[in-house]
């Protein structure tokens, strides 16, 4: 009984302080052993070797304005080249006098994407906003009314073309992928067979050959005089491709969902589509946000493959700008500039996916 007599409640205490200042942090994280200390020193040395030359090239020795290419070859970067070619790299062959149109198009895209970021806005009104936005994009690019000259789709180029192909590809490819994934798990053998055949066929072919076939072979099979717009063909190819790839990712999420969730929904009397919409997809898609965004990022960059059917996306426009005889040899500048633009969009997607993941996992957090 002596044990019980000593059983005095222990007073509640604060946890011991974790941090011990800057030096404590350094010691605990960077120099907590011989191996780690050596690694830290090597990294510091590499940074010292790399960063100063890069800064010197990109900023200190850079030339910001020059009358032509010959005057622009110094020790540093020639940003004058980018300044000179900015309009062409971004908007390509779009008539120079009406650059405000592609600028507006890019602004509309960015506005629509930002509006869709807040999950509270998801709903009918957002869908309507996007529908109106996409129609506006098409009309602005196409023109031919209200004093705007008509611009053929073969002149659509640069960043607007990249954004159109990528965003519309994702927008239509994603629902297609969800339907294919559901179809692949359907109880109806015919539906299942069609979905499996489609996914396996499309995934088995390189995108580049499909683009090629769409542009070279399709016209041979069409009746004489009938043509399908080249941008439309590329767009359809992207959607079909995205659908097949996204389907397999979504299927992964569907398979990871515990069987009990479907049974509980069934037992409550929900119909197949109610169950799918309210119970299955919200959970299955939340589980596969990282691979979905991974796919979106790679699709965004894959749009540069349209070069093969002589459409000029952002990257092709930059490469075309390099062929100007007055401005020779600024490869690094052009590629760095384009890479930064791609990087901004891709990094945004990556960060946003982390925000979404956190929001969807709210329920699992204690």
């Amino acid at each position, binding site marked *: 009984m002596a044990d019980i007599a000593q059983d005095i409640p222990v007073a509640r205490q604060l946890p011991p302080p974790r941090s011990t200042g800057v030096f404590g942090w350094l010691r605990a994280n960077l120099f907590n052993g011989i191996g780690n200390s050596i690694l830290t020193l090597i990294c510091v040395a590499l940074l010292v070797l790399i960063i100063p030359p890069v800064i010197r090239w990109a900023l200190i020795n850079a030339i910001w304005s020059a009358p032509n290419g010959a005057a622009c070859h110094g020790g540093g970067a020639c940003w004058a080249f980018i300044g000179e070619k900015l309009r062409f790299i971004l908007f390509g062959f779009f008539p120079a006098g009406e650059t405000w149109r592609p600028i507006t198009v890019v602004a509309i895209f960015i506005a629509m994407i930002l509006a869709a970021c807040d999950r509270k806005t998801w709903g009918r009104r957002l869908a309507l906003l996007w529908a109106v936005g996409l129609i506006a994009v098409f009309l602005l690019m196409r023109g031919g009314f209200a004093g705007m000259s008509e611009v053929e789709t073969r002149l659509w180029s640069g960043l607007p073309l990249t954004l159109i192909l990528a965003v519309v590809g994702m927008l239509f490819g994603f629902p297609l992928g969800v339907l294919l994934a559901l179809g692949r798990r359907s109880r109806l053998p015919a539906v299942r067979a069609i979905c499996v055949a489609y996914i396996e066929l499309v995934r088995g072919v390189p995108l580049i050959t499909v683009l090629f076939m769409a542009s070279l072979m399709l016209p041979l099979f069409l009746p004489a005089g009938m043509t399908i717009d080249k941008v439309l063909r590329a767009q359809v190819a992207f959607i079909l491709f995205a659908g097949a790839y996204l389907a397999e990712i979504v299927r992964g999420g569907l398979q990871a969902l515990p069987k009990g*969730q479907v*049974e*509980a929904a*069934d*037992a409550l*009397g*929900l119909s197949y589509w109610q169950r799918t919409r309210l119970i299955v997809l919200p*959970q299955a898609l939340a589980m596969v946000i990282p691979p979905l965004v991974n796919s979106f990022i790679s699709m965004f960059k894959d749009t540069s493959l349209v070069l093969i059917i002589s459409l000029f996306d952002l990257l092709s426009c930059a490469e075309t700008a390099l062929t100007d005889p007055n401005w020779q040899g600024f490869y690094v500048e052009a590629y760095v500039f384009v890479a930064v633009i791609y990087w901004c969009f891709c990094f945004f997607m990556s960060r946003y996916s982390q925000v979404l993941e956190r929001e969807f996992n709210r329920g699992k957090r204690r």
Partner: protein
Amino acid sequence: MSDAKATPAPVGGPVIELQAVHKWYGEFHVLRDINLQVQKGEKVVVCGPSGSGKSTMIRCINRLEEHQQGRIIVAGIELNADLKNIEAIRREVGMVFQQFNLFPHLTVLQNLTLAPIWVRKQPKKEAEETARYYLERVRIPDQADKYPGQLSGGQQQRVAIARSLCMKPEIMLFDEPTSALDPEMIKEVLDVMIGLAEEGMTMVCVTHEMGFARTVADMMVFMDRGEVIERAPPKDFFSSPKSDRTRSFLSQILAH
């Protein structure tokens, strides 16, 4: 039937009826010639060793499993491949699972109102009022806005019971509702179930809680190897089981 409680007398026969039901998993004969009748307001407790087919049987009643021979009639509707019939039966039959199966991406309140809103087409406000009433009934009125993952196992199972009740079912099926719970949480769930029984709900429970069975059951059903071996009111079932298999099962689970 020893149903002397304050429920209306059964009208027009049993509310659940299984006639010569058979089921196979591949070659394995999991249900063999099951005959069972449950009257309105009756409480049936099904027990038996694991693998005896009791879960499969109860899951056939709302077609989570499909039977291959025989007839199952629930609330006057025959279960067959007709999706309309299946959905009609599921609306009238609530089910509570061993693993709770709450929807983790929805709050407790949303879990409770989902089916009434989408299946019963109730206005949201009315569904929420009903939901809060049943949360009160299962004694967790203050957890409505939490997510299931934030609740204890016992609380989750009580939410699951409330979720079924919100559909105002005629029949409640319980498939080992306390088997996944820590011992100290079993009682809080059983108390809710006893309360439900006292109000006259028609219940079919697969459970090993023999104390609960003694308290609420009108009829005990013992299953082994896919067959109904014995069927008796609890008094006779526990004091003088007729079959050897029942006796040996009872001696095992009542040994400690």
